[in-house]
């Protein structure tokens, strides 16, 4: 289980995360929902070790990750929000680089990479550098890079942006099966539909704080109002008509 205990992050005078607590249990996909600027990406960056928290700690299977951050990093796979890749490399070269950085053997890479590229429909483009790839293709490369070393925890930050319907369906199924195998997924997004279809629990973040934590079964079984209603109540943005009207007025010459 991954556990965040009192996680805070301060940038100068701005508190991006304020004592955030959550758990990602084995076998579950935890939805991490929030509007822009609520602290989702800060949490994700902290969880994957790109930034250090100002306060609080992360625990994996009962042990603080600060004790052995390298061992923890070996167990996670990460798909970032923007497809930042070395676009002068081909997909094969990039996946080889990532595999080598993760210490995977050449034999493993020689077997896994072609199969992964074929399954993700990237094999035809294997000779092109990723500069020529669409956003969806780059996203698929990132998924491949995150999965190749068989991680225990998958951290996804808006992973479906740019993906076509087929790829989205494929990855949704894949994530469900991945979690069902006793592994963990932290799924950061601002898309209700994805959370509703995919997650077992959801944490809603607002202004750097956890505003709500719900079991998705409550929504599915009709024991609670819709996720969208909960979100709107929490963020206090329930009626968008005045803003929409103002935009339309502004459009007038």
């Amino acid at each position, binding site marked *: 289980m991954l556990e965040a205990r009192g996680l805070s992050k301060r940038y100068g005078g701005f508190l991006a995360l304020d004592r955030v607590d959550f758990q990602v249990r084995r076998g579950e996909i935890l939805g991490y929902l929030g509007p822009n600027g609520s602290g989702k990406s800060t949490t994700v960056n902290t969880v994957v070790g*790109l930034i250090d928290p100002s306060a609080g700690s992360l625990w994996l299977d009962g042990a603080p990750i600060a004790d052995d951050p390298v061992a923890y*990093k070996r167990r996670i796979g990460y798909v970032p929000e923007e497809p930042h890749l070395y676009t002068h490399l081909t997909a*094969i070269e990039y996946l080889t680089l990532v595999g080598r*950085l*993760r*210490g995977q053997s050449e034999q493993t890479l020689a077997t896994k*990479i072609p199969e992964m590229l074929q399954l993700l429909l990237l094999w035809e483009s294997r000779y092109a550098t990723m500069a020529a790839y669409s956003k969806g293709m780059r996203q698929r490369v990132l998924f491949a*890079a995150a999965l190749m070393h068989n991680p225990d925890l998958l951290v996804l930050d808006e992973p479906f942006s740019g993906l076509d319907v087929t790829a989205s369906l494929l990855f949704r199924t894949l994530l469900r099966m991945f979690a069902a195998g006793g592994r963990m997924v932290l799924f950061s997004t601002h898309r209700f539909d994805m959370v509703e279809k995919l997650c077992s629990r959801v944490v809603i973040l607002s202004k750097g704080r956890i505003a709500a934590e719900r079991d998705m079964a409550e929504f599915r079984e009709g024991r609670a109002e819709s996720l969208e209603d909960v979100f709107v109540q929490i963020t206090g943005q329930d009626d968008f008509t005045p803003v929409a009207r103002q935009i339309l007025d502004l459009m007038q010459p």
Partner: protein
Amino acid sequence: MTNEPEVRLKPDTTFADWRKRFTERAEWRLTEHFFRAMFDFGFLNDLAADSFKRVLIGSIGGFVAFGFLLTRAYMIKYAILWNTGNPERYRRALLGDDMTIIGLPMLLVAFVTLLVSQSLFPDERDFRILGPMPVRRIVVFRAKLSALLMFTGLFTTAAHVSLVPLMILTSLNPWGDSNVILRLVAWAIASVTASVFAILTITAVVGILVLALSRSRLQALSTIMRSTVLGVLVVCLPLVSHLPTLGGPLSRGAPWMVLVPPAWFLGFQRVMQGSADRGLAHLAFVGIVVVLVVGAVVAATYIILFNQFERLMLRPAPMSPPWWRINRLPLRSRVPPAFRGVFGFTVATLTRSELHQGVLVGLSACGIGLATIFLTSSIRLPISASIVPFLLMFACGVAARAALALPIEHRANWIFQVTEDHAMRREQMRAVDRVVTVYVVGVPVLAAAPLLWIALGSDALMAGLVMASIGLVFVHGVLLDWRRIPFTCSYLPGKRFIGHSALIGFAACLLFTLISSGLVRTALVSVNQTLVITAALLIVGYWLRERRLSAWRKTPLMFEDEFPDQMLQLQL
């Protein structure tokens, strides 16, 4: 209607209106955007880009200062020439110096144009961003051209203004040879034409590559060609320094002067000054023809690109491996994966990135330039042969460090951050060590091998051995304080005052070259001495390398560059 003439009578308002109308036009906005983009090389973050702009503006001031310095140096030469009372000597010297005064701005402008070669033509990004906008294609092309003219014009003007005092100095003479005003005007026209030729030549080469690149996959080839042009320009630097000595051959009408581009424009200048010399007229004719031809190539490139923009920009992804590269999957090997990963990434980036290859080749070519100066000087060949490899080695060391320090797609470095592992860091840095060692030791020693053989005969082998051993020690200097995976750390240019860095660099080069060549000459006295010195150097080199690798294992990698602490800079 009655008020309209009154408004026109107010010149300030009219000008302000005109200015407002002009600056609010889409074409001007685009020109401004393209002009700013020429200062952005894509690898700098906001802080670094600001810093780089300051460096560029500072360099314009540097040109002017250099012009004054050159004038001061030439004062002595011309005082001597005037005192000799020999007008022929003055005229011969003037021919050579005029060529230099034309050649220097040519070279500078060619460098600057090559530096912004990625922005010379509208590219795929412009096509994708501006395509859906209500802006006609002709406006985009005109704006691109205007931005290019503004950028190159800025440097052309700075270079010429800085040389005006020197031009005035060389125009003055006791024999009343020329009208100073006429000479200045003729020089300005001829020299600006020469600079335009340099800009057009670079643009034509890049333009042809842009067209070829779109038809087939010549990305790597174009990168290599641009680096080669940069290398050639750097090697031209010492050749420009030889131009003052070419006054004699030019006055005798040597036919090979037609191979020296500044001579064409000198001919043009002299023809405008009223010279009836047939040799100079011929050179002027060659110059004008060449400018017209290159101009026609550039115009044709722009026209083809304009007419076939979509087809050239929207090329399909390749379906087969390029002929120059075998896209291999990983092979079984006992080499640690971390080493292979960083080594492969470094080599791929140096092979494919124009910027990194350009820096590597450009700075290394400085070594070739310095070597050319030594080899064409009156220093005896055996002595030159013991100095030249170290000049190359030093230049390659600076080049390798600079190229590896520049980032590529800086925000993609997260993959190195999330996979950072102290257990593998030693192997990762060993890959950096290997690349640097091969480039800094192997390339110069191999390049200098023929020269060593000619100069030293069978002793060349011993000399090569000692040089390689010195190189292994020198690599430690190149990698001093290094704690980055190549290309993954942000870069802040202008961290130190350029003059300060240049002075330290010059002193380090001098010291390294003198000590190393002294060691080689000492080693070559006897075989025993060779063996002792080589063994000592190898032991020191090995010890430093092990110390370096051990330190790297303990030190976290660096992903963000930072300005040096002021207290540290002052060594307080």
